[in-house]
């Protein structure tokens, strides 16, 4: 029996769970809410794994399409159909696997929340939308999922809607995302207008059959491909928090921590990367935009990493770290290494989800405290959390043989091989910074003496099983996820054939343009090995610096001394380069002023004034005419009927 036709169950189950939890279950039925909220993604994971298993055994990993409902409106034919190809298979695995474990974790983390049931309804809804995004076989289904995850992100960031900050953060996320989505839509319109389809397959074929059209000048001095690529990238910027649209992601940390782990680290924010990888053919046709993507990615990476150095809120650090890692992925995509980008996406999903869940465990233990300055020495209180968090940190820092190393190294190698030496240097520096600020977190949180209140110290405890088990599972993933993509150079060193499974699996997804060489740039294995050594070296250097500064019980003292040594720079970092303030000055306030102008001048003076004049005239005529109005409804009806009759007469005779 083939399970693949049941692929639709994968998104349907979470949707069903959301509907049942959201509409039918009562708040007091907590057990039922848990069973449905965790069970639906669990079943979904099960089906997904079964489908993936079958997919892996398909000859040549042939893409599988599942047509559910053909939908047409005029020329626009959009099937509600799913596509399982290597790219969506990777995403499917990441989303269902990480998603399920975060659901399990949430059952423990959110146990005392009054909105428990609502939370699971939203979270399931998110899973469904994300799976729709990943599994759709055309851009419209992707866009439905794209908007769906945006909505859920908004709902979940503002989960504590009775507080002050979360709803504002949710709104900000929503509005910033709208900017990106607008561009995304325009890109889709342009694609449809030019090629008449939005199916991935058909679109790729249409473009390949009509390369001149794609390369022809289109708009804004860009070719069609360039324009589309730019529009889609702006969309990705919004969803995946790239400069300049990254500002919402750090604020999004106002949501519950598992939400940050699932939506704002592991899955939703990587949708942009997925979309760029999905559209790789268009990007390959637009080298200029591709370079732009790479530059934005590199800038975002280093920019966010430097901010991360000076943050004191544990979740904020992780948020900036996420922004930075997403920058990495776009850097990879920008230099044409789409597979590396997806690889990093997958490994990042594991270790960043792990780190967020670890921080959640810490926050849980600290009774809601997020400021690292009040932590310290948690190692002995929360051993399981500490160990798993440390694994995550090493993984993100890029120490072999943990996951982060392989993917990050592949990105750097591809950048170097592509001849982008400046970008490579930036990436390398970012890697060092990453190792440094992540170990700062570890030292401040887990080492040294406890700096919180006595109440908090008394309250400290290891988190329940439902939270630590997902931590351990994800830690295993953070260790091992990289092994499926061990680079060719290392196989050479070991004297065996190239077994970079991930590359071989995904390479059919990357389109090749006839008449042009492949995107991969050959790099000698010696060079590859030396690059690996360089990145290990800089990671170790970062760790050592962190140890010198914050290790050995020095804790927050180091921050103070840095602040004293370079006050201006530190303040700049601490205030996140004043970007929010800048946006406030540049966009928010002028807009507010414009709105005020519209209100005070255009509306009150011009429109209302005009209306007053008209109203006065009306009143005048009304005063004259009111002698005919007796208030007798039937009389009016007679006027009406006589008038209609007169018209009738006039028209007919």
């Amino acid at each position, binding site marked *: 029996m083939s399970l693949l036709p049941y692929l639709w169950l994968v998104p349907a189950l979470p949707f069903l769970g959301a509907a049942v939890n959201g509409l039918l279950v009562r708040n007091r039925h907590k057990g039922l809410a848990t069973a449905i909220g965790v069970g639906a993604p669990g079943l979904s994971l099960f089906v997904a794994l079964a489908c993936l298993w079958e997919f892996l055994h398909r000859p040549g990993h042939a893409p599988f399409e599942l047509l559910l409902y053909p939908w047409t409106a005029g020329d626009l034919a959009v099937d509600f159909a799913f596509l399982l190809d290597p790219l969506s298979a990777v995403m499917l695995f990441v989303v269902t696997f990480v998603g399920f474990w975060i659901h399990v974790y949430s059952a423990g983390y959110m146990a005392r929340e009054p909105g428990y049931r609502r939370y699971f309804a939203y979270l399931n809804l998110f899973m469904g939308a994300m799976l729709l995004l990943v599994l759709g076989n055309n851009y419209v289904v992707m866009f439905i999922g794209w908007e769906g995850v945006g909505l859920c992100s908004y709902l979940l960031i503002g989960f504590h809607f009775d507080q002050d900050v979360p709803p504002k953060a949710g709104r900000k996320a929503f509005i910033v995302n709208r900017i990106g989505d607008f561009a995304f839509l325009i890109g889709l319109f342009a694609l449809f207008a030019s090629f008449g389809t939005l199916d991935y397959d058909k679109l790729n074929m249409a473009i390949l059959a009509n390369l001149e059209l794609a390369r022809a000048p289109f708009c804004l001095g860009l070719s069609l491909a360039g324009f589309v690529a730019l529009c889609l990238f702006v969309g990705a910027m919004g969803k995946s928090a790239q400069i300049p649209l990254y500002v919402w992601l750090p604020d999004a940390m106002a949501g519950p921590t598992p939400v940050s782990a699932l939506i704002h680290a592991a899955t939703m924010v990587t949708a942009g990367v997925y979309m760029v990888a999905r559209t790789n053919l268009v990007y390959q046709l637009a080298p200029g935009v591709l370079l732009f993507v790479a530059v934005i990615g590199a800038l975002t990476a280093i920019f966010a990493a430097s901010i991360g150095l000076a943050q004191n809120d544990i979740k904020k650090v992780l948020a900036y770290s996420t922004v930075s890692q997403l920058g990495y992925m776009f850097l990879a995509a920008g230099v044409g290494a789409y597979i590396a980008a997806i690889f990093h996406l997958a490994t990042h999903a594991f270790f960043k989800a792990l780190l967020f869940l670890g921080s959640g465990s810490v926050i849980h233990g600290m009774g809601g405290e997020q400021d690292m300055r009040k932590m310290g020495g948690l190692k002995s209180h929360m051993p399981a959390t500490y160990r798993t968090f440390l694994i995550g940190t090493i993984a993100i820092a890029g120490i072999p043989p943990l996951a982060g190393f392989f993917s990050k190294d592949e990105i750097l190698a591809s950048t170097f091989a592509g001849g982008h030496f400046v970008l490579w240097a930036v990436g390398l520096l970012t890697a060092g910074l990453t190792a440094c600020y992540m170990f700062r977190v570890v030292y401040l949180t887990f080492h040294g003496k406890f700096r919180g209140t006595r109440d908090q110290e008394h309250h400290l405890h290891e988190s329940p099983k439902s939270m630590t088990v997902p931590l351990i599972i994800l830690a295993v993933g953070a260790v091992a996820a990289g092994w499926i993509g061990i680079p060719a150079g290392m196989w050479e060193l070991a004297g065996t054939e190239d077994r970079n499974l991930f590359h071989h699996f995904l390479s059919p997804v990357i389109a090749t343009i006839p008449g042009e060489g492949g995107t991969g740039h050959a790099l000698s294995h010696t060079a590859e090995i030396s690059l690996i050594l360089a990145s290990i070296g800089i990671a170790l250097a970062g760790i050592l610096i962190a140890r010198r500064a914050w290790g050995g019980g020095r804790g927050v003292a180091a921050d103070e001394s840095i602040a004293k040594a370079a006050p201006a720079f530190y303040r700049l970092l601490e205030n996140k380069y004043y970007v929010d303030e800048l946006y406030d000055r540049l966009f928010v306030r002028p807009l507010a002023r414009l709105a005020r102008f519209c209100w005070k001048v255009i509306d009150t003076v011009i429109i209302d004034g005009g209306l007053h004049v008209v109203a006065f005239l009306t009143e005048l005529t009304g005063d004259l005419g009111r002698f005919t109005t007796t*208030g007798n409804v039937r009389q009016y*009806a007679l006027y009406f009927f006589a008038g209609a009759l007169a018209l009738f007469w006039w028209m007919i005779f």
Partner: protein
Amino acid sequence: MSVPILWYLLLAGALFAIGAFGALTRRSGIAVFLSIELMLNAANLTLVAYSRLLGDRTGQMLVFFALAVAAAEAAVGLALFIGIYRLRRTIDVGRMNLMRW
């Protein structure tokens, strides 16, 4: 002997005129409403007759929609009468003269 369509049309015209007279003169709001329904019915009859005459289903479609609209109209209209009755203890349209100057 088959009935000419003309007769249906004439009947519809007569029904409409009767309904119009009732709608204009009845005092009870509900009776006015009933008369309006009568007019609607006459219009429906015309449409069906034309549909038959021209061999075109469009007339039937229109009647279908007219029926649905009549249902909506009756629901809202009767609700309005209930509201008016509650406020003013009467549904005599002659005494609903709030629109008077």
